């Protein structure tokens, strides 16, 4: 017989009747299968994120190549100190989110919640700093696109350089889309903290925390590329 029915040979029977943890969805045979699937799914999603940003990086590269002067001048008005602080803030938050996974593996609920909450605070700090940076630009009429109209010392001279608005458009679009990802990440992390507090997770099952962590790392990594390209180079 070829594709015969095999009632006794598969683990599914065992899992379904003897031991069925509450987190295991009915269409999976085992927790490992469910976990592996979720993780593979998340990795694929992260690939789509990278491709999404890659188009922006290509646009950056093309126009930087075409208008090197404009890019150099415009980029020099960005505050690299605030940028560096933000880089450190995000890197630290990646550490804390990694710690939360470490702690949940040790079944330490309290420390898990604390590390998630500190990630949340750091992410918030990142956005606050970003907010001040944006405001400092808006004050001087540095807007994306058509609204670009630099005023005040230190900015006025930009008006004379062609294609400077393009740099700022790219700057605002890239950091803006990154910022949206940070906000989404904060939502996820807050939700994880709440669920961890409620006791949803244990060393046996913490898939959502792990996936949120992966997502947060990619948000971090994208910033690691944005920062030098926009502020330093």
């Amino acid at each position, binding site marked *: *017989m*070829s*594709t015969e029915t095999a009632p006794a040979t598969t683990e599914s029977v065992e899992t379904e009747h003897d031991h069925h943890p509450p987190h295991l969805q009915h269409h999976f045979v085992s927790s490992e299968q469910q976990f592996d699937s979720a993780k593979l*799914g998340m990795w694929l999603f992260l690939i789509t994120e990278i491709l999404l940003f890659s188009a922006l990086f290509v646009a950056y590269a093309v126009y930087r190549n075409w208008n090197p002067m404009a890019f150099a001048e415009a980029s020099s008005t960005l505050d690299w100190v605030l940028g560096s602080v933000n880089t450190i803030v995000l890197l630290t938050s990646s550490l804390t989110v990694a710690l939360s996974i470490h702690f949940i593996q040790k079944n330490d609920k309290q420390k898990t919640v604390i590390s998630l909450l500190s990630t949340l605070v750091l992410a918030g700090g990142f956005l606050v700093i970003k907010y001040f940076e944006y405001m400092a630009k808006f004050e001087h009429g540095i807007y994306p*696109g058509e609204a670009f109209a630099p005023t005040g010392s230190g900015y006025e001279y930009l008006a004379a350089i062609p*294609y400077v608005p*393009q740099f700022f458009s790219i700057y605002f679009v890239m950091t803006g889309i990154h910022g949206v990802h940070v906000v989404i990440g904060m939502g996820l992390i807050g939700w994880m903290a709440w669920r961890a507090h409620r006791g949803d997770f244990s060393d046996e099952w913490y898939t959502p925390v792990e996936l949120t962590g992966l997502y947060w790392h990619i948000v971090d990594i994208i910033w690691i590329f944005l920062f030098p390209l926009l502020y330093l180079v």
Partner: protein
Amino acid sequence: MEAAAHAASQTDAEPRTYLNHETSLWEWLTTKDHKKIGIMYLISLAVVFLVAGLLAMAVRLELMSPDFSIMSASQYNQTFTMHGIMMVFLFIVPSIPAILGNFVLPLQIGAKDVAFPRLNLASWYVYIAGGALTVTALLVGELSTGWTFYTPYSSQQGTAVIFMTGAIFVSGFASIFTGLNFIVTIHKMRAPGMTWNRLPLFVWGLYATSIVQVLATPVVGITMLLLILEQTLQIGIFDPALGGDPILFQHFFWFYSHPAVYIMILPAFGILSELIATFSRQRIFGYRAIALSSVAIAMLGFLVWGHHMFVSGQSAISSIVFSLITYLIGIPSGIKIFNWIATMYKGSVWLQTPMLYALSFLFLFTIGGLTGIMVGVLGVDVHLHDTYFVVGHFHYVMMGGSVIALLGGMHYWWPKITGRMYNETLGKIAAGLVFVGFNVTFFTQLVLGSQGMPRRYYEYVDRFAELHMISTIGSFILASGLFLVLGYALHSLFYGKKAPQNPWAAATLEWTNVAAIPDPHNFTSTPLVTRGPYDFHKADEVFGGSGDGQARGDGAGSDASRLAPPEAAPSAPKEDASA
């Protein structure tokens, strides 16, 4: 669908099936069952296909003769634009994966569902949201950019473009969700014994498709977003007046849209392998070559987008390189065609309706692929670009390829989906009408294009009148065939003969191990797979036989030892085999 469910539940002592289980509208709309989601997609896509098809008929009517007119020039622009956008982004790209992939994939690999059922449902809602945005775009203004949205024209158009590009951004997520779900499902949800070399080729086709969906779709998403920002804020990325580069838009657009044509055709290849193997009663020739050529096409497909831009002003060197890589695509495509033909050779070809579509596909896709190579030749394309020749080419591959395969697949899996048989005679007549109508419509367009008829033109000179008239007549034959399909499909839902479990005597799991109408959880117990998907000679539960391998279907043996093709009413599988 409800009608079928209703009909099914009338007979008492009916076993539980996915159609008579949880039948309220609310339960349908919140279902996580991949089969029901497939049907929800089927209904939505059928509506889109109907609307976009009627738009095409309007275009053909307008072009019927130089002095006949049913609409103004600007209405004409809007009509072909909406036809193209709806057919490409809202119909063909999702079609085969979302309908048949959803329904069949878990059944073929022996899984209870896809890996992420909730994401699957979400994908349908996201798709519907994209549809809603499309309707909004129609309401708020005129859209006349063509389906390609080339800048700077598109970035200077009204709000309609914003909503339409928004719709494409949103429905792209539906595509990503489906692709992501399928990749994980294929990797992680296979039944015991379902090794990679035993995957049905439809699954391989879907796997390659999903890779393209996941890798290419985000790029069109961000492109559409940038176009929206260009419109609203004038960010100067695509608009040359602001220092932007319209060619960059074309690069981004085709970086998605060329791979997207493989999103359309790879699952069609998959269906074709199933049809050819089943209806030739023969183990597929070159299983690995077919499986891996799909993956090869998926990869190569990312390297040829520049062949759409030969006359757009990209550098000559890029054009030459893109042209050369484009030729390479012909190799894996050719490998497939030869393997299918070799499968039929000395097989016992059984000309049921799905097989008629498979044969149509072989014929039409070959023309489509060869004309593709022709426009891939740099020097030739300078003449043929933006003529009806290109229109003819892509209709041969998209309609003659994808849609014909979808039709074949729908007929093939119709009994499994609805539990009913369609009318075979009408099916054959419709397949004939579609084949003839299609060729009359589009072969003339190849000729028109080679004579210099430009695409997207509202008026044309008299010397093209005759061929345009023939093409319009052909489109009516084609449409009559398609409406005939719609008619007998609806009829069969209510009055069709009840389908047996395995009407085609196929050897893949969805036929051998799943009830006539599948159980809500697909399998009554997890299948254990011990043979390949087309090993008919080992599929004793399909053909009977003692299990000693005497019933040979591989075409290698003498006539006497070869399996006769099933007669008009194919032998139903033995009852006990399905248990």
